[in-house]
């Protein structure tokens, strides 16, 4: 009974929060509802008994949305509404509707097929984290390692893009001092 109440509470709140994320023109509202929606999704994992995944969802998305906030801070005035440039709303509508439809079909398909079985059922006595670990390092070892390599590639690319002037310090800018000296000399 409690689980059903919790499920409907979490699902209604999540849908409302993500609607605010999409509809709101204020960047602060959008980001905040995105973050809290992500946190509430971890509630579903807890209801399903997947404690470890729930906490991973919590930690990963808290961090990821925090990074998004810093971009919002740099590009927008958080206390004012953003004026959106809407060039072709019909195209956006069709594409969004199509992808929503595909998602619904994908997630609704298992309801009509009755031969779904958990290939790797949970063992309540050892805990959820061990189960996830065993599956990750046996059956899904290669996808796991490929994902790790992709993250490494992304990290190196990010360092190369950002690190062109890494040998110079931004806080102790010597070139500014030299320019001031030059100006003094010319005077």
């Amino acid at each position, binding site marked *: 009974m409690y689980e059903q109440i919790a499920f409907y509470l979490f699902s209604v709140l999540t849908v409302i929060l993500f609607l605010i994320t999409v509809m709101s023109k204020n960047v602060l509202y959008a980001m905040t509802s995105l973050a809290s929606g992500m946190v509430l999704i971890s509630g579903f994992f807890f209801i399903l008994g997947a404690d*470890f995944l729930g906490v991973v969802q919590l*930690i990963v998305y808290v*961090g990821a949305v925090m990074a998004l*906030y810093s971009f919002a*801070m740099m590009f927008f005035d958080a206390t004012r509404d953003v004026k959106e440039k809407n060039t072709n709303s019909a195209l956006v509508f069709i594409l969004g509707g199509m992808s929503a439809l595909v998602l619904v079909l994908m997630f609704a398909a298992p309801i009509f097929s009755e031969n779904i079985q958990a290939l790797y059922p949970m063992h309540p006595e050892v805990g959820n984290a061990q189960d996830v670990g065993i599956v990750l390092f046996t059956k899904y070892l290669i996808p796991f390692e490929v994902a790790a390599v992709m993250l490494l590639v992304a990290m190196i690319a990010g360092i190369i893009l950002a690190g062109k002037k890494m040998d110079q310090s931004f806080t102790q800018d010597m070139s500014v001092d030299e320019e001031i000296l030059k100006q003094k000399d010319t005077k």
Partner: protein
Amino acid sequence: MEATTLGIVIKAIIILAVISAVAGFGTYLERKVLAFMQRRLGPMHVGPYGLMQILADGIKLFTKEDIIPQNANKLIFALAPAITAATAFIALSAVPVFPDFTIPSWIPLLGGTFVPSVAADINIGILFVLGMMAAGLYGPLLAGMAQANKWGIIGAARTAIQFLSYEVVTGLSILAPIMIVGSLSLVDFNNYSSEHAWLMFTQPVAFVLFLIGGFAETNRTPFDLLEHEAEVVSGYATEYSGMRWGMFFIGEYANMITVSVLTAVVFMGGYNDMWFLPGWLAILLKIAFVFFLMLWVRASWPHVRPDQLMWLCWKVLMPIAVINVVITGIVIMV
């Protein structure tokens, strides 16, 4: 023995009552300890040795005018302090503070109720606590962005920097003890140290790294970037007054206590009986010691700059933590 709903409710009330009271008393202790370390007397006028200073502070906080700036985003501005306070107490729900006990049967109504050590004994307690404390940083972040104040924006930017710096250190430093104990449950950590040596002695590197990460997590002074008075007025809390500011304050002190409890349970033997000390007194002394350590560090070290914090966390502490994890793994395997 199975924990009943009544026992869990009693535990939650104990946590809320004790931690709120200790958080209030902590402000007094902090002033006194800092004052003695700086050869001052600290609060002396209200009550004997200034003991009633907490009451005076409370009256001031509750009666102060609550101001919301005109151009601020009012909803988020009002929400931010609640996030800090709420997440701090949610994190405490998964922390074992006192040992299991049964209420003696001569007490009417509640007699014989079993009170568990943790309000919510989830298998992944330590990750949950760290994740919830990380979510608590949304309070300062939202507060800084919502208040339409330049100092606030700088405070919010520094919150993001701080978050991106310390989290990798706390996560990696706690990984080596987790590998040794083989569980993420804080109760298992406590049971481990009842049979083995304290992890503080077998994992000294992880202990120091976790303390440093914990100081950064709770915005304690060497890493007090968010509201560094000398640089950014009061950072994220510039426009806050009255009880809204008080909620940030309570959240910060509750977080300090959470980090103290985590350190005590993971590294310092938890709530096991120690020599002649009963378990509940032993853990209180350990928590008090870590709390005192935080004040000691605050009195001893100057602030660092944001870029210095990031440099410290990513270039010094993270490699040390990774090497510690690898060495621990090799030792466990051999």
